[in-house]
C-alpha cells in the first residue's frame, strides 16, 4: 500500500438500469480520484449523476442496476459491494453528510443517542460516560452552543443550521478518511450556508479530511475545492484543479455554464440556470452527448464520442476540440 494511494479511486464506473423506456445510462465510464486530504467538488445540473457518483463511494447502487468498472476506497473494491467490503468502508473510512438536514436525523432519538450510536460502533466507546465526553467534544468542535443541553435535545428542537452541524459532528464521530457531502448546504439560507462552509474549511484544515463535495453551486466549489469534476448526463466532461477548471475552463459545457451566469461570467454561482435541457438517460445523443446544445460543435461531434484527454497539469477534458491534431481534421483547439 503506497503512500500515494488515493482515498477514493473511481475507474470507468458505468451504471445502467433496464427501464420500460429501454436502457437508462445513468453513469458512463466515470473516473475520479480523491487524494488524502483533498477536496474534490463534483458539479453538474440536477439529474447529471452527482448523487449516484457520491453514493457509489459508499457502495450504494440503485436496486437491480448493472454496475461495471471499479470503485476503490483505500484499495477496498466496492464493485460488487460484498458485505465485508461494505463493513470496511461505511462509516469506517467514508462517512456522509446528507443533503436535507431536516429528514436526516432520527426524530425519536436525542442528539446524544445518535452520536453515541456511532461512537459505540466506530470508536468502541463502551461506557456511557466516555461516549458523553466524546459527543460533547464533537458538538464543541462543530461550534454548537450549549452542547450539554443539546445532548438531550431531539432533532425537531433544532434549527436547520444546527441540525446540519449535528450531522457533521456525526460524520466526524466515525473518524473517516473521506466525507461525502451531498449538497449539504442547499436547504440552508445564505448566511447559515456561509457559516457551515467556514466550519467545513476549518475542520478540513484541522483534521486533514478528504472531501467529496457534491454541489450545483460553482461558487461553493470555487470557495472550497482543490479540484473540480464537471458531470454532464452521467459523464465526466472536465476534471482539473479548481483554478484551471473555473478560471480558464476548456470544455464548451463548462464555458457555457460559466458564461451563462449572471455577473458577466466571473461571479460563478448556480449551474441550474443553464439554458436548454439535460438529455434523458434513456435517450442520450449519439457522439458527444452535449452536441445538441454545444455552440462549438463541428464534424465529428455527432458521430464519435470524445474521450478524456489531458490538456494541462492534471486537467482533462472530453471534447473533440482537444483531440490530437492528426485525428481532428477541421477542429482547432480553443484559444
Amino acid at each position, binding site marked *: 500500500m503506497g503512500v500515494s494511494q488515493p482515498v477514493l479511486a473511481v475507474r470507468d464506473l458505468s451504471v445502467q438500469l433496464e427501464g420500460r423506456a429501454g436502457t437508462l445510462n445513468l453513469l458512463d465510464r466515470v473516473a475520479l480520484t480523491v487524494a488524502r486530504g483533498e477536496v474534490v467538488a463534483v458539479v453538474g445540473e440536477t439529474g447529471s449523476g452527482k448523487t449516484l457518483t457520491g453514493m457509489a463511494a459508499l457502495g450504494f447502487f440503485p436496486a437491480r442496476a448493472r454496475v461495471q468498472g471499479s470503485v476503490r476506497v483505500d484499495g477496498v473494491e466496492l464493485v460488487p459491494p460484498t458485505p465485508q467490503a461494505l463493513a470496511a468502508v461505511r462509516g469506517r473510512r467514508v462517512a456522509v453528510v446528507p443533503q436535507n438536514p431536516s429528514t436526516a436525523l432520527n*426524530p425519536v432519538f436525542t442528539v446524544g443517542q445518535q452520536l453515541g*450510536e*456511532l461512537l459505540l460502533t466506530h470508536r468502541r466507546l463502551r461506557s456511557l460516560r466516555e461516549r458523553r465526553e466524546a459527543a460533547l467534544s464533537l458538538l464543541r468542535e462543530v461550534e454548537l452552543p450549549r452542547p450539554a443541553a443539546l445532548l438531550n435535545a*431531539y432533532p425537531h428542537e433544532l434549527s436547520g443550521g444546527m441540525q446540519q452541524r449535528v*450531522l457533521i459532528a456525526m*460524520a466526524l464521530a466515525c473518524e473517516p478518511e473521506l466525507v461525502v457531502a451531498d449538497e449539504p448546504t442547499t436547504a440552508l439560507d445564505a448566511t447559515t450556508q456561509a457559516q457551515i462552509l467556514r466550519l467545513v474549511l476549518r475542520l478540513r484544515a484541522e483534521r486533514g479530511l478528504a472531501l467529496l463535495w457534491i454541489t450545483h453551486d460553482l461558487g461553493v466549489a470555487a470557495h472550497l475545492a482543490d479540484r473540480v469534476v464537471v458531470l454532464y448526463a452521467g459523464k465526466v466532461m472536465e476534471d482539473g484543479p479548481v483554478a484551471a477548471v473555473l478560471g480558464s475552463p476548456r470544455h464548451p459545457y463548462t464555458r457555457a455554464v460559466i458564461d451563462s451566469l449572471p455577473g458577466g461570467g466571473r461571479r460563478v454561482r448556480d449551474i441550474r440556470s443553464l439554458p436548454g435541457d439535460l438529455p434523458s438517460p434513456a435517450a442520450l445523443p449519439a457522439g458527444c452527448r452535449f452536441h445538441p446544445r454545444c455552440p462549438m460543435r463541428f464534424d465529428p461531434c455527432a458521430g464519435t464520442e470524445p474521450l478524456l484527454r489531458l490538456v494541462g497539469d492534471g486537467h482533462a477534458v472530453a471534447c473533440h476540440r482537444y483531440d490530437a491534431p492528426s485525428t481532428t481534421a477541421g477542429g482547432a483547439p480553443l484559444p
Partner: protein
Amino acid sequence: MGRTAGYGAYAARRLGYGVVLVVGITLVAFVLTHLVPSNPALVYAGLHPNPAQIARARQILGLDKPLYMQYLLFLRGLATGAWGISITTHGSVFQNVMTFLPPTLELVFFATLESMVLGVLLGVWASERPDGVADVAVRVLGAGLVSMPAFWLALLLQIVFFGQLHLLPLTGEYGGAYVLTARTITGFPLLDAALSHQWGLVGDELRHLVLPSLALAAYSIGLVARMTRATMLDALGTDYIRLAVANGVRRRRIYFRYALKNAIAPTLTVLGLTFAYSLTGDFFVEQIFFWNGLGSYSVHAIDNLDIAAVMGVLVVVSLAYTVVNLAVDLIRALFDPRLLVE
C-alpha cells in the same frame, strides 16, 4: 429542553380528554338504555305481580324519579360503587362486575400480549425482505386473521386442537379436578392459583387460556403484523435510516433499535384501537368457551333487559377502553417525542 414540562402538560391534556369521554359515554349509555321500550320493574317484581308490588319495585329501582335525577343519582352511585341492583341476579351490579371482570381481564391481557409479541415479530420478519417468502406468508396470514370472525375462528380452533389433535381443553377456565381446591383471593383465577402455590392449577389454567386468547387476539395479530410491516418498511426507507446504514450502523441495530422504535408508535395506536374490537369479540369467545367473565354476564344481562347490569358493564368497558387508550397515548409519547408538540 423543556421536555418534562411538555410531557406533564401532554399527560394532563390526555387525562382531560379521557374524563370527558367517560362522562359522555355514561350519558349516551343512560339515554339509550332508557329509550328501550320495556318495563324493568315488571321483570324485577317477578311472576304475576300486583300493582302495589310493581310500584314498590319502581321505587326500589328508582324508576319513579325524573330522568335527569336518575342520571345524576347514577353518576353519584358510580363514584361510590352503588351501581344499582341487577334484576337478574338481584345483587349489587358493582359486586357482580367485580366478580366477573377479573377472568375477562386475564383473557384480554393474554390476548393483548399475544397480539403485541406475535404481531410485531411477524411484521418485522416480513419487512426484512419485501415480497420475499416470509413477507408473502405474513401478508396472507394477516389478511386471513383480520377477515376471520372471532366466533368462527374459536370453533375452528376447538375442532383442530381439541377434536383432532387432543392437545388442548375444549372449554372452561380450568379442569373439573380443581373445582374443590381452587381458591378465591383476588378474584383473578390465574393469580389466585399462583398465590396459593397450586402450580398444577396454574398450568391447567394456562392450557385453558390458549384457545380463547388466540381466538380473541387473531384480529389484532393480523392487524399489528400488517401495521408493523408497513411502518418498518416506511422507517427503513427514511433518510435517517439510510444515513445510519451509510455510516456503518450494524443491521441488527438498524432493525431492532432504530426502525422498530420508529415503527412502534403507530403499532401501539392500532393495539389501542383493536382493544375495543377484542372486547366485543370477548362476548362471543366467552360464550363459546364457557368463560365465566364479563362477556357471559353481559350477554345474560342483555337477554333479560337488565338495565342496571348493562349500564354497569358499559361503564366498565368504556372506562377500560379509555384507560387503555390513555395508556397508549402516554406510552407512544415516550417513544416519539414529536407527539408532545401540538
